[in-house]
């Protein structure tokens, strides 16, 4: 194998694939990236056994061939090379030689036959989503994904089809985010699937550098996202998502509208006082005004008033301030509507100008 | 698909599996075996992996986590080439697995089926469709094939009613009209009316016999009113040869229905058509029925079915037991005839329940089974026994002071009764072990567990002790 490639091209591709490689691996081959040169294309593959990323990039190939080399080391080397440099990769017996300008590196390789191939298998459901829509789905739900490992079925975004709509849902048991988008053609019979957290975050990085459509293929156990030059294949979480629709209240009548910027600034200030772990703030809501307050035995107390749109009976309700900030960060129009029942029941938060997303937030006892 | 096993190999593996199962059974006990291990089926052996099938995912998880290691060890001791156990479940969701595991769980309830004799009373689908009155299947209630004259047990309390009913069923010329049968609930009025209808259909198929309950008469009439179809309604009822209305007290206070019934009744009696009426009271005592109606109801023969006597009840039970071909000791029948005095239906119901239970769980019928199964009928109430009562009874029984139940003394004469009381508290109440411990002088739940184990052991080794404990339990249960 012998090839030459632009440093920037190689760096970008390596950046994509190396990020799935775990820092510590008990199986040495999983630390490596698979490098395959054929025709005029260089293919880079990395996997952690649950996720595999394959990227193709143009290169001038002298001799075709393949090898594997430590992904992070290779990435670090290329990253430190000067901008605009040309990189030469060559396989010498069981070593990979990298030359660029006056630098020369020799890396240990492992046989390509040992590199685990993650097969997608039969993926009966295929559809396209624009990168923008996919980004919108991911960004507005991923913050609510649970990290508690015994509830593994909450460690991802649940995506399912319902009545011509595709729904993405994430929850950690304290809050829930649900985003809807028209069901893309081809997704009609798709199973409900749970995309693991790590897959979501790898996907998110890839979306940022792409435009146009992403082709998504699904089976009961795997998902594949195909971008222009990159393909991400991942196992799905093998579990059942809870019956989440039952926790979305339908009879909340106390409606409050608030400017997100003013609200989140005030929440942020007041919560400085709240103890680090609980971060509870109390909202005393009355017609026209909300009084935010927090107190802590150690550090004192804080109060701030803001203007709101509200003309129902006064209500006091407490929330974890971090959750309030997370949700107000998702409201693009800047105006949020809170739909409340009482101090111990779920509250719904929406963007007043956007019906596609809905957030459910459980209060705290304050 | 798993490897297709060759004959000899297959035999060897299934013998190994049988031994593994037997060892699991003795190691983990009968309940655990029945719940978890018995439903396991052996699917095959391939590349060192034993494949086992369970009906549900829940069982799969539990078997893997609780019994997986031991299963593997046992398999390996049988067959050293086994390297792993693979447990799969045949159903992916509880909603859709009815088809998948019918073979899997049928093994867990071998004693479930009712034997043929338990079924003979069942209103078997379509069995009596043929017997349905051909002239109006919709109006006439289906006849219960169990209700015939030849299985009606006659005794002093019902001999007049029985004779009168037979007369209606047999003779062309009945000297009384109407026949009014009355008596408390469940004494056999419906039985006699069905028997009349059944016999008439056999001996005089040309006669139009209509049997229905008064409530059904009422619903039919209300429907006719609603659909403005009362002419057809009248027509239907006034063209029968024999009309039998059961439980006429149901139209008490329903003035319109009563009015219509009165006219129907008169029309039929005037045309010399036979009418048979049943009620829970005599005509004169019926409440909410107009006086003119009452007097007309009493024109013919009024026959009372009196409450049962012990002899009649025993006779009924004996006949019923024979009919069910159930093997019931005479002592049990006597016991039931003695204890369940309310009415025949409840008496038969109790016997049915007892036989059904014995068939369901595969137990023979004894006095003990009867007391257990019919506890609600035999006891005045289900009051739960308290720990305090247990302590009191046990202290009295063993002749120790009640305070010793809470004391710290450990001499055997005192510790043993205390352990028995703890044992019974666990058996007879739902209280938690720590709570039981607290009530015995602030003892720990492990002390209670020890007491329970100790009493269990002693019951095994000392039969008179076991009888003592059993006696106390019975007394406390009331």
């Amino acid at each position, binding site marked *: 194998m012998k090839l030459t490639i632009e440093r920037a091209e190689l760096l970008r591709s390596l950046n994509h694939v190396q990020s799935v490689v775990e820092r510590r691996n008990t199986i040495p081959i999983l630390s490596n990236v698979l490098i395959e040169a054929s025709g005029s294309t260089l293919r880079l593959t990395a996997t952690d056994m649950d996720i595999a990323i394959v990227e193709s990039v143009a290169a001038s190939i002298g001799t075709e061939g393949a090898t594997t080399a430590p992904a992070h080391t290779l990435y670090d080397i290329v990253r430190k090379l000067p901008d605009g440099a040309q990189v030469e990769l060559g396989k010498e017996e069981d070593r990979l030689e990298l030359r660029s300008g006056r630098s020369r590196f020799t890396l240990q390789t492992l046989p390509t036959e040992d590199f685990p191939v993650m097969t997608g298998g039969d993926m009966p459901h295929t559809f396209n989503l624009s990168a923008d829509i996919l980004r919108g789905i991911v960004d507005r739900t991923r913050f609510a994904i*649970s*990290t*508690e490992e015994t509830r593994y079925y909450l460690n991802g975004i649940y995506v399912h089809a319902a009545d011509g709509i595709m729904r993405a849902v994430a929850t950690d*048991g*304290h809050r829930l985010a649900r985003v809807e988008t028209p069901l893309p053609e081809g997704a009609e019979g798709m199973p409900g699937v749970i995309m693991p957290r790590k897959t979501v975050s790898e996907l998110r990085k890839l979306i940022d550098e792409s435009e146009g459509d992403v082709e998504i293929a699904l089976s009961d156990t795997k998902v594949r996202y195909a971008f222009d030059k990159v393909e991400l294949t991942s196992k799905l979480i093998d579990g059942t998502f*809870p*019956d989440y629709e039952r*926790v979305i209240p339908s009879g909340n009548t106390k409606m409050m509208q608030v400017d997100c910027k003013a609200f989140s600034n005030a929440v942020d200030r007041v919560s400085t006082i709240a103890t680090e772990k609980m971060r509870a703030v109390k909202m005393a809501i009355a017609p026209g005004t909300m009084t935010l307050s927090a107190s802590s035995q150690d550090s004192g107390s804080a109060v701030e008033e803001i203007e709101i749109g509200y003309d129902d009976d006064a209500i006091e309700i407490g929330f*974890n301030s971090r959750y309030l900030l997370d949700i107000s960060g998702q409201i693009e129009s800047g105006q949020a509507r809170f739909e409340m029942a009482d101090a111990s029941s779920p509250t719904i938060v929406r963007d007043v100008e956007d019906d596609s997303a809905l957030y459910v937030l*459980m209060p*705290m006892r*304050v | 698909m798993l490897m297709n096993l060759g004959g000899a190999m297959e035999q060897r593996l299934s013998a190994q599996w049988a031994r593994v199962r037997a060892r699991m059974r003795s190691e983990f*006990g009968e309940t655990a075996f029945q*719940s*978890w291990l018995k*439903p396991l089926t052996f699917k095959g052996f391939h590349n060192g992996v034993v494949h086992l099938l369970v009906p*549900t995912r*829940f069982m799969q*998880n*539990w078997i893997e986590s609780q019994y997986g290691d031991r299963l593997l060890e046992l398999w390996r001791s049988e067959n050293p080439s086994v390297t792993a156990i693979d447990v799969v479940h045949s*159903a992916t969701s*509880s*909603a859709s*697995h*009815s088809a998948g595991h019918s073979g899997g769980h049928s093994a*867990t*309830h071998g004693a479930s*089926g*009712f034997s043929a004799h*338990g*079924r003979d009373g*069942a*209103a078997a689908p379509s069995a009596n469709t043929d017997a349905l009155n051909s002239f109006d299947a919709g109006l006439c209630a*289906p006849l*219960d094939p169990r209700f015939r004259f030849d299985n009606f047990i006659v005794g002093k309390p019902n001999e007049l009613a029985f004779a009168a009913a037979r007369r209606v069923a047999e003779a062309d010329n009945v000297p009384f009209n109407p026949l009014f049968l009355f008596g408390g*609930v*469940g004494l056999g009025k419906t039985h006699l009316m069905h028997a009349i209808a059944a016999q008439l259909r056999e001996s005089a198929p040309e006669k139009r016999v209509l049997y229905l*309950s008064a*409530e059904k008469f009422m619903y039919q009439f209300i429907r006719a009113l609603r659909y403005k179809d009362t002419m057809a309604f009248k027509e239907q009822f006034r063209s029968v040869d024999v009309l039998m209305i059961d*439980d006429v007290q*149901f139209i008490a206070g329903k003035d319109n229905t009563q009015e219509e019934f009165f006219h129907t009744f008169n029309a039929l009696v005037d045309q010399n058509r036979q009418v048979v009426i049943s009620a*829970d009271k005599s005509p004169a005592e019926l409440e909410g029925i107009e006086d003119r109606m009452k007097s007309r109801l009493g024109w013919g023969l009024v026959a009372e079915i009196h409450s049962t006597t012990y002899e009649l009840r025993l006779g009924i039970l004996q006949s019923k037991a024979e009919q069910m071909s159930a093997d019931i000791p005479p002592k049990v029948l006597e016991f039931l005839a003695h204890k369940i005095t309310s*009415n025949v*239906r*409840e008496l038969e*119901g109790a016997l*049915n*329940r007892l036989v*059904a*239970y014995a068939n*369901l769980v595969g137990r023979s019928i004894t006095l003990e089974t009867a007391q257990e199964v019919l506890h*609600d*009928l035999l006891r005045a109430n*289900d009051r739960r026994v308290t720990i305090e009562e247990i302590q009191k009874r046990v202290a009295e029984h063993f002749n120790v002071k009640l305070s010793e139940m809470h004391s710290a003394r450990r001499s055997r004469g005192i510790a043993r009764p205390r352990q028995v009381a703890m044992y019974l508290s666990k058996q007879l109440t*739902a*209280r*938690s072990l*720590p*709570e039981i411990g607290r009530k015995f002088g602030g003892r720990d*739940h492990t002390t209670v567990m020890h007491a329970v184990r100790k009493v269990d052991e002693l019951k095994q080794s000392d039969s008179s002790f076991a009888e003592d404990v059993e006696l106390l339990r019975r007394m406390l249960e009331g």
Partner: protein
Amino acid sequence: MIGRQFPLALEFLPALGRADFLIAPCNQAAAALVDAWPDWPGPHALVYGPHACGKTHLVTAWREKSGASLLDPARLTVDGLGDALDVAPGTVGPPAWALDGLEEIADEPLLFHLLNSVRERQGSLLMTARAAPSRLNFTLPDLTSRLAAATAVVIEPPDDDLLAGLLIKLFMDRHLTVDPDVVAYILPRIERSFAAIHQAVTALDRAGLAAKRRVTVALVRQVLFQ
């Protein structure tokens, strides 16, 4: 600290198939009754036992087998009875109905009429109740005697093995993974009733979700035994 953050009431559908029903001496007869259908001694059968003992589970399993339609005791009326008992066209096999919660019916003549109608239609009716038929406080003599004649089987209080199995099953119904030491800790300390086991698992699930913690012995101690 437990209890300040309210958790969302996230739930799963419990496993209510026949094979998911754990058999023990105390409920053996009830399960056998369901299995024996359609070979019942009569048209009316009743399973009775304390709250949360598995009556609804058996009804669900029986409906799966018999195709019985569920009668809603709160909505049943005399006028609507005919419609409620209508069998869907194309139904094969004997007609069957289930009535889960006999004590919810206050209209005794209605119940009496229902029992008669089921018999007349040569169908089967599986009923459930908290107590034996003779303890249900019905007063209409015709009704009580008919109920007394139903094939009634009891579910008795659970034994230790069943409590253990049930505890595990309920955790799994909630997709909660617990170590055996959690089960071993709870069992000797808890009230030995069906209801207590259900309440305990619900409380632990909610507390774990609220605190974002695994269900461990430490959590159990805090939630149930303090």
